[in-house]
């Protein structure tokens, strides 16, 4: 399933809404999650999962092609942990 298919499903279930509003609804949800994480916040959606930010410490890396040592700065990466209900549903039946 891709974004446009998700929008179509929601539009089909809500014939009273304009297509452009359905697009806005779906986009707002995903944008809000990214905004939260870029502020360092967590987004916890019970039953579905939680989005959070993990810190990766600075480290001494290596250029795999030349073998040269390079220093890699500390950085923050997005992380998703599946919720219990969804994890259980994936393994039923």
């Amino acid at each position, binding site marked *: *399933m*891709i*974004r446009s298919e*998700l929008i179509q*499903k*929601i539009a089909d*279930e*809500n014939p009273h*809404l304009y297509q452009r*509003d359905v697009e*806005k*609804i*779906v986009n*707002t*949800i*995903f944008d*809000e*999650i*990214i905004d*939260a*994480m*870029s*502020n*360092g*916040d*967590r*987004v*916890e*959606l*019970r*039953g*579905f*999962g939680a989005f959070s*930010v993990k*810190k990766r410490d600075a480290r001494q890396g290596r250029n795999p092609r030349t073998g040269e040592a390079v220093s890699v700065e500390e*950085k*923050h*990466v*997005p992380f*998703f942990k*599946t919720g219990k209900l*969804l*994890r259980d*549903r*994936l*393994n039923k039946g």
Partner: protein
Amino acid sequence: MAEKTLTRMDLSEAVFREVGLSRNESASLVESVLDHLSDALVRGEQVKISSFGTFSVRDKAARVGRNPKTGESAPIPPRRVLTFRPSHLMKERVASGNKR
């Protein structure tokens, strides 16, 4: 950095603010988006949201695990797990937003 936790309520508040539907309807639309994502994944589909990320379902083989507390070995049956791969945009925004 004061870390907050957002919930469904914050997402529906954003929908309420941006789209101007009632709070009730905003909340039920957030729920139905999450339901559609979950249902597709449970059917084994990959869910690809452009500029957000990709959720995929992977099959894990059975293996012998260990209870880390007691050291006892315990069989782990085959199972399906969900992985999320963030988009470049998400990675970039998270990296630059959290830079000090």
